[in-house]
């Protein structure tokens, strides 16, 4: 064992310095038009840095070209070559260890150990991938993680020791019997599975090491050891014989919906194996989903899909937008999350409804800001939008006002957002000369007129025709998310087009018509499924996931599946529990 330790130790530090290798060329897939794209460096002046496609976008985590290709296969309409290729193909998902996010860590110790302190700010910041912060590939324990885990675990241990009477009906002065109770009753909840005999005895030994100094140090070292353990820090989705174990599946369900360890009922379903039956799994999933605590997952999703928190950091010129106050910003962020949560919980709500609703959950501040009417609808405060094109999630103030500058709209940011978040389009890197330029203010021109100048440049048009085509069509809402029909003294031109999506170019006018288009877009619906898949599985879709995602997406797109059904399907689909061998 010691020999192995030394070898591992040496290997562990072997990352300090190796020369980087130049990656091979790879083909590009799924681009929008990129004719006329100017290479990053001019080959005529830079022979040492030849023009290459950029295989990974500098991103080791996500192979961008491969992801584009995977997405293009997921987006293909049902009944084509992709579905034929998937026929009789078993669908499985990745074996992985998933490091707890800071929210998951804190929720777990709050639920199991009754910890009241919020330690999220003391835990490491997650690296995001496509906006999701639970990507298991990039969530690794660096030295900074390890230091934070030790620090937080010691603090949690201090707090938990004071609650032992409540938790396990003993106190640290009771000595070994109390240590054993912690091992037998709390460790399985924190590790989300029963402990093996050797694990119990190892923890008890550690407890005794501390106990030799004092009972309090015994308990501190024991609880800290449990919390520093890889069995706590990683959610295991490794499986056994090609399938998740009952405990792993229970854990997956619990963290997906609540971001925390399984509750007593789910633990029991794992212990008696009922979670492994279709009926048992569905019953638990429905129970978890119908709980208010599943707002955890809708918030995680909305924070990525709708970028709902970003408005909280948006600043506006107070002379231009005096009504854009902090309470309004808060209400906008809450509107996006609360309305999304409300919609997915309705038994009959479909994807289309997300883009066509004309009332949302909000407060009096926001109702006034939107020039809408606040009313109570079965105990819920709802804003009935005014008779203007405000409809659906794209017209949320949270979306429109953060995709803007402090003084005006930003059509490029809006177009880029819709392409990425609604259609899963992965843009090419911005090449030299194709810059996102904000033209200087000019009182005689509308925002659109000024921004249009760069789109007319043939070098820019390749990409910006698609980006600006959408952004310009959203000009009926100003930089702070208020409906308008005039800009700089001229009537707003809201004509836009969606280029290269659903294999077509579609004209529209204004956010309302854009929303109507997205509501019926095949690509948007399939993208929505992909994004839920990323959140649930904690990794970016791979070629091996195409058939599973297509299976869900086909049913969602063609079967008029409700949102709630989709979310349940994501976690109960056979591919979730089946693991690669």
């Amino acid at each position, binding site marked *: 064992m010691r020999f192995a330790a030394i070898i591992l130790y040496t290997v562990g530090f072997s990352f*300090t310095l190796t020369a980087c*290798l130049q990656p091979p060329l790879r083909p590009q897939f799924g681009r929008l038009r990129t004719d006329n794209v100017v290479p990053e460096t001019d080959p005529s002046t830079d022979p040492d840095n030849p023009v290459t496609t950029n295989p990974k976008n500098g*991103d080791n985590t996500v192979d961008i070209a491969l992801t584009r290709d995977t997405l293009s296969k997921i987006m293909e309409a049902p009944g084509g070559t992709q579905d034929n290729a998937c026929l009789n193909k078993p669908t499985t998902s990745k074996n992985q260890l998933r490091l707890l996010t800071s929210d998951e860590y804190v929720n777990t110790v709050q639920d199991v150990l009754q910890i009241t302190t919020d330690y999220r700010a003391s835990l490491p910041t997650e690296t995001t991938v496509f906006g999701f912060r639970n990507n298991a590939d990039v969530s690794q324990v*660096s030295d900074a993680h390890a230091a934070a885990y030790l620090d937080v675990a010691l603090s949690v241990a201090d707090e938990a020791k004071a609650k032992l009477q409540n938790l396990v009906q003993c106190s640290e002065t009771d000595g070994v019997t109390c240590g054993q109770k912690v091992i037998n009753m709390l460790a399985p909840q924190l590790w989300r599975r029963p402990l093996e005999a050797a694990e119990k005895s190892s923890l008890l030994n550690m407890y005794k090491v501390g106990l030799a100094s004092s009972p309090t140090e015994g308990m501190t070292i024991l609880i800290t050891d449990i919390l520093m353990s890889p069995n706590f820090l990683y959610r295991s989705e490794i499986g056994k014989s090609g399938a998740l174990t009952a405990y792993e599946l229970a854990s997956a369900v619990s963290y997906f919906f609540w971001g925390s360890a399984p509750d007593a009922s789910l633990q029991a379903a794992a212990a008696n194996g009922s979670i492994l039956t279709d009926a048992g799994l569905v019953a638990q999933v429905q129970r978890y989903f119908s709980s208010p605590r599943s707002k955890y997952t809708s918030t995680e999703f909305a924070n990525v899909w709708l970028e709902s928190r970003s408005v909280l950091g948006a600043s506006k010129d107070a002379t231009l937008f005096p009504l854009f106050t902090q309470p309004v910003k808060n209400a906008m962020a809450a509107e996006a999350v609360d309305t999304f949560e409300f919609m997915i919980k309705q038994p009959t709500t479909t994807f289309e409804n997300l883009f066509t609703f004309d009332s949302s959950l909000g407060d009096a501040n926001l109702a006034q800001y939107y020039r809408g009417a606040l009313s109570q609808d079965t105990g819920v405060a709802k804003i009935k939008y005014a008779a203007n094109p405000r409809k659906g999630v794209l017209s949320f103030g949270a979306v429109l006002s953060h995709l803007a500058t402090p003084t005006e709209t930003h059509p490029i940011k809006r177009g880029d957002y819709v392409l990425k978040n609604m259609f899963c389009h992965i843009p090419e890197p911005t090449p030299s000369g194709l*810059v996102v330029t904000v033209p200087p203010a000019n009182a005689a021109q509308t925002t659109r007129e000024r921004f249009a100048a760069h789109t007319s440049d043939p070098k820019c048009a390749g990409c910006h025709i698609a980006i600006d085509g959408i952004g310009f069509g959203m000009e009926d809402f100003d930089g702070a998310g208020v409906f308008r029909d005039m800009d700089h003294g001229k009537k707003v031109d809201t004509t836009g087009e969606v280029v290269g999506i659903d294999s077509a170019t579609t004209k529209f006018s204004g956010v309302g018509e854009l929303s109507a288009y997205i509501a019926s877009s095949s690509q948007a619906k399939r993208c929505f499924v992909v994004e839920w898949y990323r959140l649930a599985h904690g990794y970016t879709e791979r070629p091996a996931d195409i058939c599973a995602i297509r299976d869900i997406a086909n049913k969602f797109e063609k079967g008029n599946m409700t949102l709630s059904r989709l979310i349940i399907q994501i976690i109960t689909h056979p591919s979730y529990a089946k693991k690669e061998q």
Partner: protein
Amino acid sequence: MDDKIRKEISRRNLFRYLGNSVVMLPFMRTLMETQAFGETTNKRAVFFYYPDGIIESAFHPTSIGTGFVLPGMTAPLGSVQGDIIMIKGVDYKTSNSHQGGANYALTGCENSITNVSIDTYLGSKFPKTIPALRLGVATQYEGADIAKALSFSAVTGGQPTLSQIEDNPTKAFNALFGGSTSSPSPTSGAATPPVKGLSNTLKKSLLDDNLEQIKGLQSKLGTLEKTKLDLHLASIREIERRLQSSTTSTTTASAQCTKTISQTKTFAVNDTNYPKAYWTSDVFDAVVDMQTQIAIQAMACGVTNVVLLQMSHSVSNAHFANGMPSSTGTDHHDTSHYKNGSLAMIHTQNQAYMMTKYANLIKGMSAIKEGDKSLLYNSVALAFSELGDSDDHKFKNMGLVLAGQAGGYFRTGRCIDGTGMVHNNLLVSILQSMGLSDTTFGRTDVAAGGIDALKG
């Protein structure tokens, strides 16, 4: 090569040999490493990042040598002109816009990141209680993404791990100096973090057991998730090393190790709001100043030899008005696309602000006396961005400035022409100035050796 450096290298070679020997116990290696590197140098390296590139004519002097005139963006460096080297003509050998530049700047790698960044590397060579201290200003505000990452703490199995950067100066200060902002007594020895809950001996036992648990899991899983767990093991061992370092370090701190800073703002250490209070542009200036002071104190007190001081991140969402951060100002990145003259002026003002802060860092380091020299004299402090010309996303003639002499290695007070050299050469120069013998860093296909013109 002086005797000291030669001796150091010889020790390192010995260590390298022993490090691969199966008779070495892991903990002994830690001790050896400290002996080999930790106490034989008082050199420090600082990396000062500013976002969104430059306007070449507003950044670089027109003449080389001494007596150069600093244009608009770098004019604030006039007050430290004798302490800096303006570097013209050096290129980044990378591609892919902001991301390519950010990922390359400290790794020297294009596209795939296959080695750790230079701050991590130097930290591993000259480890203190904190091998590399990374402090930031709103770096995590929509910035915790590989697309914006400069620093990588590990690369395992082809997977780079982003370094954690502390944006909260109150938290950074407390972590380094135990929360005391008022004790002015100079302290010898590395700052010892407060012992929480357990003695260091018990912590050591705990971490040993933790290592066994990780190894146990690893042996169960075989090759599955092996690299992830390898990194986890290495990280726990690093925490063990720090525990050891905090109890055995004999480093003599500067008399100006006061462990105090001018705390103009206090931030909750437990801020769970979005955005965090310390991310907003209204407090940007205060946070820069506090983080700079913390960095200087950390070096003066012997807590670290390597610092990354990161201003925002590439494609910065910080707002500026009249050359100062301001919540209702213009987006920093938007103005970096300056095509029009009026925006060029604003971008110049914004980057001049960054250079003012870099000048403050230099002055602060200069004020820390170490014998008859200063912390600055013993250090190298590089200012860099992810792009050259920002409007065109260029990687040529980058905005690079070097400060400090690294103990007499660099000759400051000059502007040099580095045409023909690439940034990898500059990174090698920094390594060599610290006493290392590396001849490459990052891409080996574009550069080898340092930039001789920088030397004294």
